[in-house]
């Protein structure tokens, strides 16, 4: 009698082949067009920031798992994605200590203290970014960051310019073509609008990002900024400037749909995307900050569990008890 040792487990015995590693790898692949453009545009310092950000993010996670005696989990690439996204939101001239503190805040404070992957109530990269922006705003001022660069286009950060001078004064400075093709001053990975759109569409088509959130987000930006713009075109910029500058597109395709901090049901996803965009526009147009993307999405992360309670009734629930 041959008695093989068989694998025994429970149904289902098939899997669609997806994994955390694959999902995170695809997120990073989708970010590549914008990243490569940023490296070309801003040169070696940008490479330095991204490399440091990615590696320290993974290192922080590894250190936390080591200290807390947990199984090492950096191979799922989740912290690599956090590091990459944080790096993409920094200017190329960000000092090394800022990057390391940023990844510490993002990975340790944003993710690991809540229990690691899947347990974070906020987008970790945004937590890091928000604290950096509140603490060292001068290092994140894009106009100041690139004074030693010589660009062939308007070397003004569009949103800061709108905030300072009003929409009328800057209306001739930024064309749609320039903004789409990355001819604007901004963070390493967020200036190349076309690249971000390509990456986002790739993620949506491959099913790694739920289409509802980016679509509702973009509709929200266009709708809210149009309302402001129609009310006072001299003061408030057109939807075009708001959509293609700052962190808007990066937020729509990469930050807002972060799995753990966004809803999963359809109507909540639409509400989430639309309201996050609405908050951003309120901050940009009425609030104190140039770009409210970071705080706008974080605010909606807070209410995510509440919105996600809007869900369809389960099969057979509440029937047949009569």
């Amino acid at each position, binding site marked *: 009698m041959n008695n093989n040792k068989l694998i*025994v487990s429970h149904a289902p015995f098939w899997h669609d082949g997806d994994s955390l590693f694959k999902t995170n790898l695809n997120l990073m692949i989708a970010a590549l067009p914008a990243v490569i453009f940023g490296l070309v545009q801003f040169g070696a310092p940008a490479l330095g920031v991204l490399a440091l950000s990615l590696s320290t993010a993974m290192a922080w996670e590894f250190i936390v798992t080591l200290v807390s005696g947990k199984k090492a989990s950096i191979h799922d690439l989740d912290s690599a994605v956090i590091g990459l996204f944080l790096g993409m939101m920094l200017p190329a001239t960000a000092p090394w200590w800022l990057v390391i503190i940023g990844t510490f805040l993002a990975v340790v404070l944003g993710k690991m203290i809540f229990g690691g992957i899947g347990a974070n109530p906020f987008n970790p990269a945004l937590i890091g970014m928000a604290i950096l922006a509140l603490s060292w705003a001068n290092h994140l001022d894009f106009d100041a960051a690139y004074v030693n660069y010589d660009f062939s286009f308007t070397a003004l950060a569009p949103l800061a310019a709108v905030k300072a001078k009003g929409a009328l004064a800057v209306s001739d400075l930024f064309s749609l073509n320039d903004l789409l093709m990355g001819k604007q001053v901004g963070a390493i990975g967020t200036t190349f609008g076309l690249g971000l759109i390509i990456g986002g569409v790739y993620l949506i088509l491959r099913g790694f990002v739920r289409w509802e959130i980016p679509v509702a987000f973009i509709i929200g930006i266009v709708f809210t900024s149009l309302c402001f713009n129609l009310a006072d075109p001299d003061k408030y910029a057109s939807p075009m400037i708001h959509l293609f500058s700052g962190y808007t597109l990066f937020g729509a395709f990469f930050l807002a749909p972060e799995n753990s901090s966004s809803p999963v049901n359809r109507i909540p996803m639409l509400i989430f995307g639309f309201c996050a965009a609405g908050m951003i526009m309120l901050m940009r147009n009425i609030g104190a900050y140039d770009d409210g993307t970071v705080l706008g999405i974080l605010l909606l992360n807070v209410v995510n569990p509440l919105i996600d309670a809007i869900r369809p009734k389960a099969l*057979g629930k509440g029937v*047949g008890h009569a």
Partner: protein
Amino acid sequence: MIKRSFFALTRPRLGYDTPEPDPKEPKAIPVPSNLILLLHDPLDDARETLIKKGDKVEKGGKLRLYKDSKEYTVSPVAGAIKVIDTYSDDFGNTSTYLVINTDQGLTAGTGDMKYDLKDTIASADEYLRTLPGAPPLKTLADPDIKIDTIVITCADPDLLSTTQQYMALKFMDGIKEGIGVLKRITSVRKFCITIPENMNVKDEIDFAQVFRTSMIYPANLPPMILKEHLNMILPAGKTPEDMGICFMSAEAVVSLAQAYKTKTACHEKVLTVIGKQGTSYRVTASIGTPLRRILNAFSIHVNDHDRLVIGGPMKGFSTYTVHHPVQPDTDTVIVQDRDNIPELSDNPCVNCGKCVRVCPAHIPVNILVRYLEAGLYEDAMDKYDLLSCIECGLCAYVCTARIPIYQYIRLGKHELLKLNADA
């Protein structure tokens, strides 16, 4: 194994398999010298059993452990009992297995045992429970369960299997006859029959209401058939039987008709066997045949760390031994190579929501699984619809974090049953 498509904007579509248009005769597996029978009745060491090691059994003879046992099995061969021992399944439930040996020279001349079948459900339940296809006679004979509709399933509920579709293509007359028998022996008047929408049935079916079922999983699972074709929503935690609906496989109906015609039981089970490369074979084997015999007949070699799955890839169970027998309800046997076994993990849920979008019962699986992982089964039932689950396994199939969600759900239901039983 069906992987996700490159583009995955919509949820995955897992299609049911269809048999070849004019199916060949299945390969018949000779009856082996040792047959293994499972008896869903645990052995009690303190009591003396009715059957003992060395006892002779007749072909078609009923075997029971104790005088008051409600469960029985029927020997498909004449021979002698070689072993009686305890078997435990994947949930730790214990039952008994018997090994019947045929080559001891004791059996010459004995034919099939003739049953004294009357036109009552009790009489059918007395002898025919273990017919191929496992007819639900116990349910039909239970005076506490009021069944008014029988749905005959010619559409296989799980993927890869084509056994029931084959029965429908080859034995539609038998199904008609079986419905006649059921009409005689039960008080059920409404008969429905599920047929896959792309199956060509030669003759018009006028003896039952026809449901043409979709080719996309999980359309053929009982709760989905109830919902789509009978316009009935199965209340959470109820079974179709509670609603007066009994599901019965095509094979069960055919073998019931044959049993009433010949007054003997048939023991030849039709199976779909799926090899490591995904090749599908159809065989007939006597109930009790160890699976090893069938696999050997097609030169399918099972090595260490392979997986042997009984039932379909979504709802079946895996066994730890190649000696597991063919049972009355074994429609499919799948051998998975060690390299094709998807890895599961202990990752926490990352809230990607794929399970929520794929769930046919609209359960918030992402939250449910957190409660189940924490062992909060009652909260899971009250707040997050644990009992609405129709057990299709799609959530675990798509899970990015590779959490064995379906296993958690079954465990949760199992624990709740235990809690209720203790209360």
